[in-house]
């Protein structure tokens, strides 16, 4: 008699994911309504900056932040389904605008906290120019999925601006997000990639390879917007963090990681 182990494993194998499990756990413990705590939903590309912002903010104010990281699309979906976040730091302006249109935020709290910089990158050192994209022996160029990620859309604009759209067709490999596009290049599977400048700058000095920063004229600025969510209108820690994010201390930290600030 066949014991059917594959069937059972099919059923058991968890597909819900950690985020879902944690959400379920959070639902068991309703918010304690303490005014000095805030939960920040952060787009993955901003994670390293957020870590430093969190440290500085907490030592300056004594408030306590909890940071939840995910892709902008997934965080947005969680928010409209009632996820217990106070602030949303998105990687684009489309999702925050959408939340604003759906009256999910405290009016007037949507603002651009960082402007992403795109760069063409390869791990080997030396010089790199846009001509590298036209090399006939080039096999793969990694970009973030333009349908999902602003950095991907920006990369597509740059490629079009250089007149290389036709030439690069079939050579473009698309990561689900900018992190995956970066991994494709870092692991040597794609020779070149359009990644975030902040990713390259987060590498050690010796690992930064070669890069070419496309002029801002070639692509729409990658505005990353923040919003204070409606349920948190009276959360003091959340309001304090919004004020902090607009201030000069935060801006200095943010530009240190390869972002522009408004």
């Amino acid at each position: 008699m066949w014991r059917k182990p594959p069937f059972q494993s099919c059923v058991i194998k968890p597909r819900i994911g950690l985020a879902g499990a944690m959400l379920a756990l959070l639902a068991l413990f309703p918010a304690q309504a303490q005014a000095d705590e805030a939960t920040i939903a952060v787009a993955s590309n901003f994670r390293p900056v957020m870590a430093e912002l969190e440290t500085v903010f907490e030592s300056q104010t004594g408030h306590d932040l909890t940071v939840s990281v995910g892709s902008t699309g997934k965080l947005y979906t969680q928010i409209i389904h009632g996820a217990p976040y106070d602030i949303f730091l998105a990687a684009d302006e489309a999702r925050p605008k959408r939340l604003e249109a759906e009256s999910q935020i405290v009016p007037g709290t949507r603002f651009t906290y960082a402007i992403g910089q795109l760069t063409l990158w390869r791990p080997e050192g030396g010089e790199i120019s846009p001509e590298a994209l036209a090399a006939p022996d080039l096999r793969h160029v990694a970009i973030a999925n333009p349908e999902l990620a602003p950095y991907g859309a920006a990369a597509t604009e740059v490629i079009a601006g250089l007149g290389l759209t036709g030439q690069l067709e079939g050579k473009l490999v698309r990561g689900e997000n900018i992190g995956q596009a970066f991994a494709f290049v870092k692991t040597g599977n794609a020779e070149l990639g359009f990644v975030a400048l902040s990713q390259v700058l987060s590498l050690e000095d010796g690992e930064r390879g070669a890069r070419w920063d496309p002029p801002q004229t070639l692509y729409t600025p990658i505005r990353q917007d923040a919003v204070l969510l409606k349920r948190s209108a009276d959360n003091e820690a959340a309001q304090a963090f919004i004020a902090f994010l607009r201030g000069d201390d935060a801006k200095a930290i943010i530009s240190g990681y390869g972002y522009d600030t408004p």
Partner: protein
Amino acid sequence: MTLPDLPALWLTLRLALTTTGLLLLIGTPLAWWLATTRTRAKPVIEALVALPLVLPPTVLGFYLLIAFNPDSPIGSFWLSVTGDTLTFSFAGLVIASVIYSLPFMVQPLQTAFETTGRSAMELAASLRAAPLDAFFTVAMPGAARGFVTAIVLSFAHTLGEFGVVLMVGGNIPERTRVISIAIYEHVDNLAYAEAHTLSAILLGLSFIVLLFVYAFNRRFPVHAH
């Protein structure tokens, strides 16, 4: 269904069929060897075969991303032979799927061979059948149910593959953009209508495939001895 998703559906079916075919060629001798061997290494091999059942697909995908890159021994060998990289290619997805679905082919076959195989083979040997001849005329027909289960499960499991493809595929239309990736992209992009259509197709297809296994197993029950 929107037309742009048709290639994804077709690609998924091609991937599942190719994977199942290759698994049949690789899994049959492996399962037979596992069912008949007396080596002490057997538990080790069995554990290795079962690994994809418990490992998150992302672990396999991550290792493959490293192993497939054009500077690695495997990746560079493949590139020099075929002129194409293993990552971001259909061939790479097939190899990944073969590893990923290996237990779904090997385990049902091994069980079937263990149940019906050895005594029948010994009988055939006593009638002076050559081992290979005996295998094809005695052991394989005896394990027909195991084969149906293994084939259908491998096929269905590959249909639903996601994590590994996400890691090594690169989401290239008509090459590596399978149906599960397309659904994922639609959901992230808030295109719920397209996601619904594709999900319903996958759900229906998977149910029919599984229904086939259970109906078949009912019609040809195994008499345990």
